[in-house]
């Protein structure tokens, strides 16, 4: 044990601590190492994408999180799909048509396509997939998308006819949903291993998945389009801590990062060779008010709360400006969106309305919500804003499971303890029906669905039902526009904002797009080296 060597090690340890502290004070001065552009990987090395959490499954029919859909969209394709603006486009189908009352949908399929395992893609394959999804016995997580299917018939080698039990105008949206992807019939027969060994027709085929560490896909040589995909390999890495995701981009360990926390955009904007992209998502942020409970049974009180909250400030404080004040119950990219007039921030008017409703000195109430720091920050913000009009807000953050029990464990609305609920909604089918019905239909009270305001309006119920029973887009647009207007006027929510999707990529990454729903599209992704 030489003393000199010992001290060397000790001083090293001290440097670690000291450097850690000093770095903290001086890190605004950028060192050279930090601002060096990351070197572009070769096509063989491929892209590395850092995402938030673990993938749950590679079986699209049994998946319900956007992140898993992102990896699946590299491997699988559906008959239909969404483009970047959420228009429905044919993918594996050449074309499709619906009959007048939208009960029979006929698909003509593209020819000459094979799955990664060599199985040909044809009408039989489509039938196998839809039968699997529509079979209630299969207990798949996404079977509800196809629960209306009565039968699927093969009418030619490349033609399929799907018949519904009742009219459903938004059915094409369900076919375009990422869960309606086509799996190789051979893989379906070999059953339960799809979740770990996905086989589709997409531009990439599955290589390896180590849970919690990485999931890798590689170029499918037999892809139907020439020159696609443009990179040989894509690796997804789950990185739960948002600061670590940003750091990976700074060090060049990741080429693409999603999501980026709004408060970290500033950090990345200073970074050479990195670009940050933001665009509106499909999410609408709100807090609902239990309209069956005093004082929220009075629309004046509900409107007062809408006036009492400064939505612009909300966008700035919570999302650092990376959101927009919502002008409807659904986001602008949702189909049949109809713009309404914002309840402009006006605390005086809020106080007037409260006085009219018989609460000149305000009242005390409680809000429930999740425990993430963002959600807690939101509720703190409401608390501060509402205190300005005399309302005392108790903030009760609850862990997801507990919150679910407290809200959806209640069978009878009269027993609901819920007063205010801090929520957000994103319709995965991008259609007005799924953006409104689960939240505002009187059949959607918890535990059935997500009407946490216990909002009940016969006219709205009727309009939502009408919208379901036709495939006529013009008529549907009218019904949903009227419904949106009535709900907006009844104000069962405090309508807040549509947050942006924020992702960041190295400048050499091109063509990798993000749908407003939060699903990645890797098909055209490429590495551009100058």
């Amino acid at each position, binding site marked *: 044990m030489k003393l000199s060597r010992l001290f060397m090690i000790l001083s090293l340890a001290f440097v670690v601590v000291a450097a850690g502290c000093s770095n*903290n*004070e001086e*890190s*605004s001065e950028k060192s050279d190492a930090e601002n060096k552009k990351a070197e572009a990987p070769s096509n063989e090395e491929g892209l590395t994408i850092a995402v938030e959490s673990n993938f749950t499954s590679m079986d699209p029919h049994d998946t319900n999180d956007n992140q898993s859909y992102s990896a699946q969209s590299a491997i699988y394709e559906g008959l239909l799909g969404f483009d970047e603006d959420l228009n429905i486009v044919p993918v594996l189908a050449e074309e499709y048509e619906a009959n007048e009352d939208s009960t029979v949908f006929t698909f003509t399929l593209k020819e000459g396509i094979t799955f990664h395992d060599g199985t040909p893609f044809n009408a039989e394959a489509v039938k196998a997939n839809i039968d699997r999804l529509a079979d209630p016995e299969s207990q798949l997580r996404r079977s509800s998308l196809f629960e209306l299917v009565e039968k699927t018939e093969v009418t030619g080698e490349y033609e399929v006819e799907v018949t519904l039990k009742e009219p459903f105008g938004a059915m094409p949206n369900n076919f375009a949903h990422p869960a309606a992807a086509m799996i190789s019939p051979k893989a379906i027969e070999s059953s339960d291993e799809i979740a770990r060994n996905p086989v589709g027709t997409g531009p990439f085929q599955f290589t390896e998945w180590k849970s919690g560490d990485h999931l890798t896909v590689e170029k499918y040589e037999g892809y139907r389009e020439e020159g696609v995909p443009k990179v040989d390999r894509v690796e997804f890495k789950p990185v739960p801590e*948002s*600061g670590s995701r*940003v750091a990976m981009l700074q060090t060049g360990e990741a080429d693409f990062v999603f999501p980026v*926390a709004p*408060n*970290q955009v*500033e*950090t990345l904007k200073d970074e050479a060779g990195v670009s940050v992209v933001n665009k509106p998502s499909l999410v609408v942020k709100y807090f609902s008010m239990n309209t069956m409970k005093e004082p929220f049974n009075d629309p004046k009180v509900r409107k007062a709360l809408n006036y009492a909250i400064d939505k612009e*400030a909300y966008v*700035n*404080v919570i999302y650092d400006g990376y959101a927009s004040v919502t002008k409807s119950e659904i986001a602008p990219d949702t189909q049949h969106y109809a713009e309404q007039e914002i309840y402009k921030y006006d605390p005086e008017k809020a106080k007037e309305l409260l006085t009219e409703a018989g609460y000149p000195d305000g009242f005390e109430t409680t809000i429930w919500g999740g*425990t*993430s*720091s963002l959600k*807690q*920050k939101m509720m*703190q913000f409401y*608390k*501060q804003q509402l205190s300005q009009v005399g309302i005392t807000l108790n*903030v009760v*953050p*609850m*862990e997801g*499971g*507990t919150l679910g029990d407290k809200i959806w464990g209640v069978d009878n609305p009269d027993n609901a303890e819920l007063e205010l609920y801090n929520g957000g909604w994103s319709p995965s089918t991008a259609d007005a029906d799924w953006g409104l019905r689960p939240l505002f239909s009187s059949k959607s009270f918890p535990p059935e669905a997500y009407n946490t305001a216990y909002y009940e309006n016969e006219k709205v119920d009727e309009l939502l039902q009408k919208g379901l029973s036709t495939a006529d887009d013009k008529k549907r647009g009218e019904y949903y526009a009227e419904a949106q207007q009535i709900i907006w006027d009844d104000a069962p929510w405090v309508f807040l904002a549509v947050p942006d999707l924020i992702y960041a990529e190295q400048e050499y990454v091109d063509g990798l797009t993000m749908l407003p729903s939060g699903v990645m599209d890797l098909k055209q992704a490429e590495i551009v080296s100058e």
Partner: protein
Amino acid sequence: MAEANVHMEEQKRVTPFQQFWSSFKKQKVSFAAGAFLLLLFIVAIIGPYIAPYEPNEPDYNQLLSGPSWQHLAGTDDFGRDIFSRILHGARISLAVGLSSVLLGAVVGTVFGVISGYFGKWIDSAIMRVMDVLLAFPGMLLAIGIIAILGPGLVNVVMAVAIFSVPVFARIIRSNTLAIKSTLYVEATQSIGSSHWRTIWKHIFPGTVSTLIVYFTMRIGSAILIAAGLSFLGLGADPSTPEWGAMLSNGRSYLNNAPHVTFFPGLAIFLTVLAFNLLGDGLRDALDPKIRE
């Protein structure tokens, strides 16, 4: 032999406290730590009165501004004055640390003394339960308890208290065993003194010095666990100026506003450090084996 005699005579003249005090004073580092903690307690009491701002008063024009004369430690993402929040938070963080360890120590000591004193099946039953509790690293146990009870400061205290129990139970048990085997306890037993009287009068006083040392040391880890729970979103409501919550909420700003994490981090670091150093010093001063 002569040396030992001199020693004995000296001991007779000083009370145990004086003896402890004289040897504790020699531990300069611990002494400084103790002084720092004293100061901290004073801050905890008067902090809210000397804080320049309201801890929850947002100022949306001063978001994340760095340290200045106006805001000594800068402002956070709500524009709240960090210095004022730290002053207010001293009370909360100390209260969480102290109350959770106190609760754990009381329950643990009761179990430990009973287990060591009565022995036999009582001992094995209690110790098996403690083994099971010990089998979980503190953080995992705390998360489990918070998962059941829900987040919030009171539940954090409960969680930290529960996993302090087995630590105290084990140490106090072995202490009890050692004291029990000494002559004077056997003597009182043979005189016919009741169990509870023996425990209260003879066993418990013998464990006090160990108790003090461990108590001091556990406070530090309790504060750290509370901070860790905040990091996982299972700690205090973030509007409360609890240091751990402040540190955890500020971590998104490590790059562009490091002061948001630096000051609460420093506060936690110094406090935990002080408790640990004090504990070390107390052990050296109270442990008869080391005392010279």
